[in-house]
């Protein structure tokens, strides 16, 4: 099906430039898709969706009584990034994660950055992810944020910006891996022609990282993925990762703490655990230290952690750097800790805790996106231009009542990618979440999860709010204007 009638609509389009020519690296895919009829494309789209359903790649929707599972909607048109461009993104992400890790370590030790006057102490201590209990802790190798899923967006100017850092338990990597399997199966020729960098070694890299965290030497360390349970919306991913790494998937009820060691209940008695890749918030991991009402946690777990008998990825307390007000200071952190200029920019951010910013935000609510600093997943935010006057007024009251809890950003004109809608291609807005592993060195998965807002005109890409996903192809070669291989 041809792209002749495709309209970029004045947005930055990932596949076509303003003149309607395929961007570098996109030629092979544009050619191949043009050769296929609508029926063929639809058949493949349906086959892909069926495969995802059969594989059980679903998420559960909260608040739905039936516990309905849905597949994360998937679009077959890939989002393509030429390698030449990717190199810059990769370097920017490494730099950022390195600085963030130094920041977290500083927060829980000397707080030099506060003493040097770059960040107000009050901002750090009031962040919902700050854990006083973690002061003075030394995670193995000095790494706090082992797994990061940074959200990037491309603006109308064609540049990538960091939207959120997601240092706690970023999810979605399983979709990247499974989408790739499905795309290879559905479009082997286009895939072959485009020369796509592989992502399939992610589980192996993650396993190596986790094993290296174990303090016990000699014996093969026992590593497990810790899930809140089958009713968690990301349960599929937890079990998928455990399966791919060949390690146990545990729940809180499988674990018990004996003499400052975390043990799991097995059919032949208790067995020690060395490393937990926990997909559960700090608040719930140990009722003795954090939330006492946690039913998911393991009493005594933090004692085992402090004693060095257990490693946790990510380290408790990491969430302090996930606060959206702290986010605004990341470029300053990069300069402060690394003495480098940031490679990737932040989105301009107004901190409502500042009197001047607050006045600006309240006066421009119809133009801004306002977010709660501690939330993620698209919850609790106001998209000013799309909200009614009443919604804005109600939101303004919330902001005034607790300015520290809010930040605002200009409404970005996110880039778009052609997406198969009914019987033709239409542009849909996308973001990008690459996954970064911080072990002995820093690894950035080539590509990552491209989330797409499937509703026409929508900017919200979250799966809980009508978003879907696409496979992301980092294609080999410089990608600076040269043509791709013929199909």
């Amino acid at each position, binding site marked *: 099906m041809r792209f002749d009638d495709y309209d970029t609509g004045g947005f930055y389009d990932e596949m076509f430039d303003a003149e309607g020519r395929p961007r570098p690296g996109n030629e092979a895919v544009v050619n191949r898709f043009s050769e296929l009829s609508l029926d063929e494309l639809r058949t493949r789209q349906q086959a892909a969706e069926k495969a995802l359903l059969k594989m059980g790649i679903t998420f559960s929707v909260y608040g739905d009584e039936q516990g309905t599972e849905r597949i994360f909607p998937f679009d077959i048109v890939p989002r393509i990034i030429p390698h030449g461009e990717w190199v810059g993104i990769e370097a920017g992400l490494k730099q950022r994660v390195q600085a963030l890790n130094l920041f977290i370590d500083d927060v829980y030790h000397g707080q030099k950055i506060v003493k040097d006057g770059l960040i107000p102490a009050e901002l750090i201590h009031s962040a919902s992810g700050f854990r006083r209990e973690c002061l003075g802790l030394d995670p193995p190798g000095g790494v706090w944020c082992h797994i990061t899923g940074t959200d990037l967006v491309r603006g109308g100017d064609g540049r990538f910006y960091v939207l959120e850092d997601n240092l706690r338990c970023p999810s979605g990597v399983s979709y990247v891996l499974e989408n790739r399997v499905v795309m290879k199966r559905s479009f082997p020729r286009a895939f072959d022609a485009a020369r796509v960098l592989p992502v399939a070694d992610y589980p192996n890299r993650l396993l190596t990282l986790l094993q290296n965290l174990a303090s016990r030497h000699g014996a093969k360390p026992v590593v497990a993925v810790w899930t809140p349970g089958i009713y968690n919306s990301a349960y599929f991913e937890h079990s998928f990762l455990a399966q791919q790494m060949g390690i146990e*998937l545990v729940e809180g009820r499988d674990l018990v703490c004996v003499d400052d060691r975390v043990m799991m*209940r097995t059919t032949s*008695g208790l067995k020690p655990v060395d490393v937990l890749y926990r997909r559960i918030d700090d608040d719930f991991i140990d009722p003795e230290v954090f939330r006492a009402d946690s039913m998911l946690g393991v009493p005594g777990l933090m004692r085992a952690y402090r004693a060095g008998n257990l490693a946790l990825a990510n380290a408790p307390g990491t969430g302090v750097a996930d606060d959206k007000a702290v986010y605004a200071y990341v470029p300053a952190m990069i300069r402060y800790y690394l003495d480098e200029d940031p490679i990737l920019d932040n989105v301009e951010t107004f901190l409502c805790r500042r009197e001047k910013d607050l006045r600006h935000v309240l006066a421009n609510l119809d133009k801004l996106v306002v977010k709660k600093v501690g939330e993620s997943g698209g919850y609790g935010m106001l998209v000013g231009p799309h909200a009614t006057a009443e919604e804005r007024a109600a939101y303004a009251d919330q902001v005034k009542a607790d300015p520290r809890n809010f930040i605002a950003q200009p409404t970005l004109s996110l880039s778009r990618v052609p997406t198969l809608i009914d019987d033709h291609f239409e542009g849909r807005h996308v973001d990008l979440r690459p996954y970064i592993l911080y072990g002995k060195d820093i690894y950035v998965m080539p590509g990552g999860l491209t989330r797409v807002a499937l509703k026409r005109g929508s900017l919200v890409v979250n799966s809980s709010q009508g978003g879907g996903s696409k496979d992301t192809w980092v294609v080999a070669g410089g990608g600076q204007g040269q043509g791709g291989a013929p199909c």
Partner: protein
Amino acid sequence: MLSRVGESIYWMARYIERAENVARIMDANYHMILDLPSGVDEQWEPLVVTTGDEERFKELYAEFTRENVVKFLTFDPRNPNSILSCLQAARENARSVREWISSDMWQQVNSFYLMLKDASRRDGSIELPHEFFVEIMLASHLFVGLSENTMTHGEGWEFARLGRMLERADKTARIIDVKYFILLPSVEYVGMPYDHIQWAAILRSASAFEMYRKRYGQIAPDQIIEFLLLDTEFPRAIHHCLITAEQALRNISGTKRGLFTNPAEKALGRLLADFDYTQLEEIKMYGLHEFIDSLQTRLNHIGSTIHETFFALPLAPAAAPSQPTE
């Protein structure tokens, strides 16, 4: 292996086996009905008695009609032993152990469940019952075949085998008991084709018709009972199920034949020993119904000892064993 994982695998296998058995007895009954002389009522009540859910059925339905019974046993979510409920439970269990079973097994449980879910949306009436029930039985066989060929034959696999065999022994026992109970009073039919048809249906309910024929030839009630209870080679015969279950249990703990290290091994080993040395005459002297009643009590007891031995570790850390029992 985590206790929770062992338990989930065990129940996953049991629920799939249960679903398959329910499909099989319904299929056998449909077959039998088509052969009945006109004027003889269709019998659907025994099916519900076989699954042991008579009381729940009576709460939900007025009569044991074909429509009601098929709906109750196939799609009714209010019946925890309906095929749909069994598959939902099997799938929930499989979902919690996806990292243990193979992807192929998971996909098979998932597709199996989705197939029933789809069928239940089509207003519950079954156009071609035979095709439908055969499809269910084949889906179960495919699952077992995948377990055989894609999963490591280690501890998890043994738990699946243990669950499957105990479930099968229980269901074969119920089929014999219920049918025998119903057949006995109808003395006026003895020796008539109708009687023959019902006995053949019992064999079909256990997929045993052809294998029985090869072994004994003529349809004779005593030999059918002997075959389904005491045969050591037919895979749905209770004796065979117990032999396999006991092997699985010993492989899990590593205990040699003749010894036991936990209450589950003791209970199952003792039951198997009884079967090893029991003859049909003795069963008849004891009373078939009484024999099966006692068998089921003992199977239930074995189920609870397995739970206590492997799945229910004490919750308080102080009470937990500091050394593995192995």
